[in-house]
């Protein structure tokens, strides 16, 4: 057990982890401001913002000996009998001095800076800085430049914390960015023809505490205080990175990573970062269509659902078989209701997993404590980050649901062949994939094999063009629900946007088909129901999940999880990124 003293109060750290004074103080709700420190990066202590008075207490005599100078808290281990003073006049005056120094050359262009509203300089200047500017010389002006075609660098705003440089050296180990020149003239730069183009490059924008590195995709489009943040899960691949979808005026504007030590650590890939465009696509299906006299007519949802329900029931009554293709883009709750519906109307019907898109190979970044590191690594916990080749969020969850209802999982290739062979009279196909999952020839094969075809998708695909009823589903941003990632982690994603005009989220469509009663359905109700019914999902009992999700039954935790009670189990967010106190 470790006892530390912060501002005269005694605190105990239970499990004696090796953490620094910033983390220890944060655990007890005491903020030590910092810029250059990041829990995943080595400590270089170059911003000097976190300097506090540090000393040690002799446990026998109770005598406290303070170090004569201020010491960076990011470099100070929170070991037994450490004494920290974070609010003395000496510390406060030091912070005022550092803020003044950092702002000497900083332009006063907050009104046009995209970082304004989530900027470390703004927040700490307000908390710890001084109101007047005493510097009378001309400020350094560095013209803005591009470090890649996605990222812009306004180096006059830079405070040389070198977080971005350390990220490219230590996490991606590509080392595109470096500090060029020295002292007053130092600036971040790339070598000619070696731009910052690795697949995780966008993270440097997130870790930049000021508005120096900016995402060109978001540049000048929105002010951050207009955006509402919704905790969601990236559906780009089966890693299931935790993200926030930031939305305003009915459109998603960007994805930001959300810390989860079990899944994505602090990062997301650039592909996931651009994934928000799926939600804003003007080509999304805008209505429900029913085939009448060889033509698809936009039909009110209730009539279309009635047509589905009537025809499927008729086919089942006449002894026909129904095939349902459950897409790996559906949430666990949606898959459960779909399977339940199909098995209710005809127990002989067959459930199959939808097409699982794959592209390329898994790419893993495994930072370690020796390579590329430039400073103190003793506080760093290295965790891998993987971009999966499997480009769907919920293959594993859908498999578990289908296995529960049917005992085995039939893959897409074999069900497509069986439908083409004329085994079934009706097919219910779900997709919601951002890229059309069915090409012309598969569509024609499926169409030929059945007499009644229902397609539920978010966009017009060759298969939808052939369907008897086209139900419009919700994009990932329009629905709430859980996904099971590659490692078997069940994670909840909030809905970020309201459903499009004339469209219901998939969960509501299935609930209406199942005649579950009036009123909108909540995903947590369904989750509670399926957790009680299916043993594998017992972790979600009551429809509630922990903040970082939970591992479903039969899955191995991925080995990088933090120990119980560790600081890494608490949500990490840079102090300027959250709402102001």
């Amino acid at each position, binding site marked *: 057990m470790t006892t530390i003293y912060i501002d005269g109060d005694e605190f105990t750290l239970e499990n004696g982890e090796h953490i620094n004074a910033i983390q220890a103080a944060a655990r007890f709700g005491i903020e030590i401001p910092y810029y250059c420190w990041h829990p995943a990066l080595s400590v270089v202590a170059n911003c000097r913002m976190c300097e506090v008075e540090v000393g040690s207490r002799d446990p026998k005599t109770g005598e406290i000996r303070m170090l004569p100078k201020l010491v960076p808290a990011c470099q100070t281990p929170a070991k037994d009998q450490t004494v920290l003073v974070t609010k003395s006049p000496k510390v406060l005056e030091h912070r005022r001095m550092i803020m003044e120094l950092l702002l000497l050359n900083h332009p006063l262009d907050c009104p*046009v800076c995209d970082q304004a509203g989530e900027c470390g300089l703004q927040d700490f200047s307000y908390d710890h800085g001084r109101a007047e500017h005493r510097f009378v010389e001309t400020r350094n002006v560095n013209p803005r430049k591009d470090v890649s075609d996605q990222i812009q660098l306004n180096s006059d705003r830079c405070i040389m914390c070198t977080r971005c440089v350390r990220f490219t050296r230590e996490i991606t180990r590509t080392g595109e960015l470096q500090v060029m020149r020295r002292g007053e003239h130092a600036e971040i730069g790339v070598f000619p023809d070696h731009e910052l183009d690795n697949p995780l490059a966008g993270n440097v924008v997130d870790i930049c505490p000021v508005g120096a590195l900016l995402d060109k995709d978001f540049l*000048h489009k929105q002010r951050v205080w207009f955006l509402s943040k919704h905790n969601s899960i990236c559906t780009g691949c089966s890693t299931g990175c935790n993200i926030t979808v930031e939305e305003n005026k009915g459109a998603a504007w960007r994805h930001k990573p959300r810390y989860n030590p079990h899944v994505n650590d602090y990062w997301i890939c650039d592909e996931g970062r651009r994934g928000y465009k799926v939600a804003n696509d003007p080509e999304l299906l805008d209505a429900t269509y029913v085939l009448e006299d060889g033509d698809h007519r936009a039909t009110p949802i209730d009539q279309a659902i009635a047509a589905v329900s009537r025809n499927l029931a008729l086919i089942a009554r006449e002894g026909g078989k129904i095939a349902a293709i459950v897409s790996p883009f559906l949430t666990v709750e949606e898959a459960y209701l779909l399977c339940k519906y199909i098995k209710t109307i005809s127990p002989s019907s067959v459930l199959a997993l939808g097409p699982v898109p794959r592209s390329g190979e898994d790419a893993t970044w495994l930072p370690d404590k020796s390579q590329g590191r430039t400073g103190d690594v003793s506080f760093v916990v290295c965790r891998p980050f993987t971009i999966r080749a499997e480009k769907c969020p919920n293959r594993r969850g859908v498999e578990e649901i289908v296995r529960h209802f049917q005992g085995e999982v039939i893959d897409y290739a074999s069900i497509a062949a069986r439908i083409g062979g004329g085994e079934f009279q009706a097919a219910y196909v779900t997709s919601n994939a951002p890229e059309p999952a069915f090409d012309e020839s598969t569509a024609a094969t499926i169409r030929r094999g059945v007499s009644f075809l229902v397609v539920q998708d978010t966009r017009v695909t060759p298969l939808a063009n052939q369907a008897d009823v086209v139900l419009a589903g919700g994009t990932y941003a329009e629905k709430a629900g859980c996904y099971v990632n590659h490692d078997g982690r069940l994670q909840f994603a909030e809905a970020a946007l309201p459903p499009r005009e004339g469209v219901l989220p998939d969960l509501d469509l299935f609930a209406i088909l199942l005649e579950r009663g009036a009123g909108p359905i909540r995903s947590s109700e369904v989750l509670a129901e399926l957790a009680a019914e299916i043993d594998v999902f017992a972790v979600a009992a009551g429809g509630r999940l922990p903040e970082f999700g939970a591992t479903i039954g039969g899955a191995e935790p991925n080995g990088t999880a933090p120990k119980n009670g560790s600081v890494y189990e608490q949500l990490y967010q840079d102090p300027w990124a959250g709402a102001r106190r």
Partner: protein
Amino acid sequence: MRLDDPCIKKLEPPKLNVFERTYLPQILDGLAVTGRHILGVLRGESITIEYPEQPHRPSPNYRGVHRLNKDEQGRVKCVACMLCATACPVHCIDIIGATAPENWSDREKYPESFVIDELRCIFCGMCEEACPVDAVELTSFYDLTGLSREEMIFDKTKLLSVYDLTKEAEPSRMGNLTTF
């Protein structure tokens, strides 16, 4: 706020004497004002004007229709920081920002679209207060009419034309400040 806050200064209403408590002096005061006006009209000092033949000139701080100021090169001064839209209590300002053209060396951002819904506006002047570059100002235009709702939603062109109309009579109060 605490009730025993030493900064709070408590004021008592003045005590009235017996004569004042009859309220006759106040009534006589009021009648005197009315009488002065009657005599003024008889002497030809009218307090009303023959609007619309004779235009009314509001005081210099009157808050009428908005204008978008131009800089000395004739470009819109606004930098699309959206602080006016943030300050606006009725959300009547809608701005779409964009990266400024390459040859605008002095700024990074400009408004691609700038729309004020004059029907929704309550003319409080908060946008003018918030603007860091004095680009949006309220003019003394008060006789604002339109035949449709659409006509009363002012876009960038219309707001810039209000500046052209009023720049002679009402020069920008802050001068031509284009940088922060």
